[in-house]
């Protein structure tokens, strides 16, 4: 034990002498732990956001609203429905309030006033609760999430509204989503009258049976309507995909961090070699040395895990507003602020890190062991090219085995792994070809090309890290670009009218000049083959037909559709139910009898979580189904009529031109990929770090060669240039192999991951410009970073051949 302790303290002394090596190890583990902590916390928040009780606020299973603003929902309606037995309905009033502290800045928040006493629910059988989770409804009070209160900067003080009225001091409630201020109804109605701000809805805060919904619809007065949330909304499904994607990104970051750590360990052990040899000569056993090395690693891991967990928790909490708004805009679901339990997270992070490092530490320790036993130095083993072929075959065939989200993501990992094997097998031969092609009359260039072959074998980890980062970068960029193109094309086609009108009055008709053709859009919840779906009306005009982009369509589709015998279904429905063109389906709208339809076409419906069918106007036309949306088409030459007419519309009605809608859609699109762009930068940074470490490790071994070159008269600048050229060739070779891998990975993301996560796909579009930009930017960034260590490589060597400590 004493020997182990002595060895341990010796290693720590060596670490103090060359601190940046352990610092790099600690930093890499810290980055991995921070990433995993952030992912874990965000995913916990996303999971909590699926709580039914809280999602009842943003996505209630049942909502009663007024059909028209002119006849709003009243307190009497509420009281009567509760007396009729619908005590699961709770009155809410939604608004957007601009709030500020006394001298602070204003902040606009969504407000939700809730009948707190109405939300109270307390049942016991033999003293045991049979109530579901109750809402965090503040009674006589105001509450908001701690992050919201922090953003307001109003701790412990009342809030002022824009109209000069005051809200009581809000309390912090971690169960509430960011950006929402919740209050009891009397508090809200001390600020506004019911005429100024009528009730928004009655929401079901607990699950309601189908029988109760049917009874409710029967009892509702004519001015009210009940709508059920899509059963298959996949808010839970989508946030699960969000979590899976985050876990995948976190795992990717952890894997690349692991690469760095292993490289750093290699470097550290290589630089300590002389001292370790002396320790072995002094009689220290290999076991004791291994124990000391393990102890040193455990110490670094403990420090790094604690720092990483703290950093990850701080970053997550700091970025909660941005994450929350992304989550909310993507899923229309609540996002609950994370509550990090640092001790638990630390133990998890430290445990996982130790487990991973113990496994991966074997490689550098085995290498160290070989060096310590003075075996004849052997060059690294070159992977046979046939192994690369097998890896390629696996990578090409594996996607066919994907059957759900998890298997699809696993195949992504497998593909990257196979790609690494291909790189390690084919990069050296590729560079060897390049070396052979380089004319010998350019000796430095030839030396660089030949050295690049050796370098590719000595920097496998770094090469793999760069390959993974670049492939993922290319794949994400292609995927994003394809999605952008598909979305633009699809939205542009679907907005086949000149403009669209949205009215909250729920009117089925709207007055307009003769030269303007207004077509209402009807929506309804239906069942298709006894499973829930959303139905939407679609006109069969020539313009509308041209606007409906389809993946597959029957030859007589529009004839059947017009006759009321055919229906178009979206991709989501087709994938979920295994439907294809020509299949017979039964669609039942509420209160109507079932009708048989033939599936005449399948259309893309990007971003829609619901299964949807398109039906002719006649099938859905009714006051109950009026959505308040109208398409507007002007007669030829009457375009200016639309603008003049739009100015006459009342406050409840808005007009949007097709081009304005397209712009809004694409802006929303760009916002959803913020996190992806950040992740691209993060993985490239990690790859750059990996290369950096590799350079330092390798430079320890190639110094004799460089010294020889110097002695032959090559200047330091040309030597550095030669070194840079080696890495340039390495990066270019890796990039060349990354391009097809990236394209393949993009296809897997679209056709498998997206397909199983969201049940829709879009065409893969390969834009040369996007590809070239990805490769050039990524490679350029890496090379720029590599300039720093490369410029510091010493080309002179101590004649005593001693490695400096």
């Amino acid at each position: 034990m004493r020997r182990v302790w002595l060895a341990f303290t010796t290693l720590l002394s060596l670490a103090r002498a060359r601190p940046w090596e352990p610092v790099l190890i600690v930093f890499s583990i810290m980055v991995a732990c921070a990433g995993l902590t952030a992912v874990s916390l965000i995913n916990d928040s996303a999971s909590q956001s699926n709580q039914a009780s809280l999602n009842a606020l943003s996505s209630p299973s049942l909502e009663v609203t007024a059909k028209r603003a002119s006849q709003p929902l009243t307190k009497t309606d509420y009281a009567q429905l509760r007396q009729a037995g619908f005590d699961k309905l709770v009155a809410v009033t939604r608004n957007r309030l601009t709030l500020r502290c006394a001298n602070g800045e204003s902040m606009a928040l969504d407000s939700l006033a809730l009948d707190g006493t109405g939300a109270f629910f307390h049942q016991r059988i033999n003293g045991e609760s049979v109530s579901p989770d109750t809402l965090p409804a503040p009674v006589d009070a105001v509450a908001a999430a701690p992050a919201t209160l922090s953003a307001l900067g109003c701790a412990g003080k009342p809030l002022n509204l824009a109209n000069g009225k005051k809200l009581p001091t809000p309390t912090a409630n971690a169960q509430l989503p960011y950006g929402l201020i919740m209050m009891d109804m009397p508090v809200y109605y001390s600020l506004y009258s019911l005429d100024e701000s009528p009730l928004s809805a009655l929401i079901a805060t607990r699950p309601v049976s189908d029988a109760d919904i049917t009874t409710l619809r029967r009892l509702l007065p004519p001015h009210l309507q009940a709508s059920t949330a899509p059963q298959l909304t996949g808010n839970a499904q989508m946030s699960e995909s969000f979590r899976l994607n985050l876990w995948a990104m976190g795992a990717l970051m952890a894997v690349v961090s692991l690469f760095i750590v292993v490289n750093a360990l290699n470097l550290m052990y290589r630089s300590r070699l002389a001292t370790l040899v002396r320790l072995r000569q002094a009689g220290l056993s290999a076991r004791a040395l291994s124990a000391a090395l393990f102890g040193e690693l455990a110490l670094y891991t403990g420090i790094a895990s604690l720092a990483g967990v703290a950093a990850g928790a701080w970053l997550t909490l700091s970025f909660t507003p941005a994450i929350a708004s992304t989550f909310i805009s993507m899923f229309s679901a609540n996002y609950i602020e994370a509550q990090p339990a640092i001790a638990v997270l630390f133990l998890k992070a430290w445990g996982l890190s130790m487990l991973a490092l113990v496994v991966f530490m074997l490689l550098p320790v085995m290498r160290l062991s070989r060096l310590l036993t003075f075996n004849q130095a052997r060059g690294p083993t070159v992977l046979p090219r046939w192994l690369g072929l097998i890896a390629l075959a696996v990578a090409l065939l594996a996607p066919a085995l994907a059957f759900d989200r998890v298997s699809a993501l696993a195949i992504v990992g497998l593909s990257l792994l196979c790609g690494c094997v291909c790189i390690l097998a084919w990069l050296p031969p590729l560079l060897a070809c390049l070396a052979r092609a380089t004319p010998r009359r350019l000796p430095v260039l030839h030396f660089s090309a030949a050295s690049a072959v050796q370098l590719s074998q000595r920097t496998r980890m770094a090469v793999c890290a760069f390959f993974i980062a670049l492939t993922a970068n290319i794949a994400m960029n292609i995927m994003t670009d394809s999605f952008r193109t598909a979305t633009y094309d699809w939205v542009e086609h679907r907005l086949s009218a000149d403009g669209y009108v949205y009215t909250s009055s729920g009117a089925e008709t709207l007055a307009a000049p003769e030269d303007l053709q207004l077509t209402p859009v009807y929506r309804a919840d239906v069942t298709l083959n006894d499973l829930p779906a959303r139905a939407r009306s679609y006109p069969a005009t020539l313009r509308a037909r041209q606007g409906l982009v389809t993946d597959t369509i029957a030859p007589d589709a529009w004839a059947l559709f017009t006759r009321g015998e055919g229906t178009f279904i979206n991709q989501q429905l087709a994938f979920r139910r295994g439907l294809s063109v020509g299949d017979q389906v039964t669609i039942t709208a509420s209160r109507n009898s079932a009708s048989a339809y033939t599936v005449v076409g399948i259309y893309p419906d990007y971003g829609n979580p619901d299964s949807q069918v398109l039906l002719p106007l006649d099938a859905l036309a009714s006051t109950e189904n009026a959505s308040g949306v109208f398409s507007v088409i002007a007669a030829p030459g009457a375009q200016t009529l639309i603008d003049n007419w739009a100015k006459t519309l009342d406050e409840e009605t808005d007009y949007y031109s097709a081009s304005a809608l397209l712009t809004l859609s694409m802006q929303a699109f760009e916002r959803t990929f913020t996190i992806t762009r950040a992740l691209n930068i993060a993985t490239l940074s990690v790859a750059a770090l990996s290369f950096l470490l590799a350079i330092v490790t390798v430079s320890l071994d190639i110094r004799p060669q460089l010294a020889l070159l110097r002695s032959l008269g090559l200047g330091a600048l040309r030597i550095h240039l030669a070194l840079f050229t080696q890495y340039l060739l390495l990066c270019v070779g890796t990039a060349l192999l990354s391009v097809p891998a990236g394209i393949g990975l993009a296809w897997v993301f679209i056709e498998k991951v997206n397909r199983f996560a969201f049940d829709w796909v879009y065409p893969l579009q390969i834009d040369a410009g996007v590809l070239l930009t990805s490769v050039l930017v990524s490679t350029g960034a890496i090379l720029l970073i590599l300039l720093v260590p490369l410029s510091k490589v010493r080309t002179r060597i101590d004649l005593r051949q001693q490695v400096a400590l």
Partner: protein
Amino acid sequence: MKRLWLSLLLMALTLIACKEQQTQSQRVTPFSQLAASVPDAAPVVPGNPVVLPADHASHPAFRLEWWYLTATLSDISDRPYGLQFTLFRFTQPDATDNAWSDRQRWLAHVSLHTPDTHYFEEKVARGGVGNAGVYTSPFRAFIDHWQWQASPGTQDYKMFPSTLSVSATDKVSVSLQMRSTGPAVLHGDNGFSQKSADGRFRSYYYSVPFIDIRGSVEIDNKTLTVQGDGWFDHEWTSQLARGDALGWDWLSLSLDNGQKLMAFNMYVEGEPPFTTGTLINADGSSRTLSADEISLTPSGYEQINGKRLPVTWSVSIASAGIDIRISPFKKKQFNPGVAQYYEGRVEVTGSHRGRGFLELTGY
């Protein structure tokens, strides 16, 4: 030796007194949530008799009020059941009067005890919304779909005949038809009910102890026909909703000779328990019992939720030849609501037989 015995006796008495004091100081007010005062709350004053049927209505000027129905029922197999429906009204001291609040808060309890199971549900509602309240034209006391409604054709203000429709959890629903078979009884001095020796604590209080009940109880989709007796209490006060009111032991009994008895011990801070009651004859005549005339002594206890509750009592009214014991028909008849208290059906043995309800608060 004498001095030794005297000393021991003194010590014993001191210990007993300390224990009693300790016991009293361990009591809690059942009105902890109403501790803040309502300055404009109306006082309970003597010389202001309860007038029926007008006083069946709500008295929002007073701080606290309840309409309290208990029923001892049995089905056709003679299985006993204890049912309670209570509607409470509170005036909130710091509440605002606006479109969504009239400063009143309504709380209701439904409790059904079968020999094996206890079903309990609690509801809360805000006054001014319209889903809770007491109306009188015709009489209706309700919160959401829990409704006590006078039967069609009943005169305004009159409570009987009426129907009670309530539920408890999703497993129990109750539908009872009730009719009064005797007069209402005004407790104390024409309904002015003194609750403490110095008169600081008081309420307006009357009962309708003669109620015949028939109807059905559905439990787990199984419908049972039931019948039995009911007892209705209506009480309103501002002088009881105080932090130094430490609860009470209260009982209402129907004896087999047609007599009824209401009695209670009231506990207040700094005073010994105040005991009183009303003995009601079969013809509806009644007399108030002073502390000297009635003895209420606990004789058995149950440990419930860490509290030692006196659930068995000896009651004696020498002047009426009543010497009875009351004991619960089952264990753990405890209501675990926002306000927690014991409310259970009891059986009467001794000089008379019968049944009734026991309520314990402040433990």
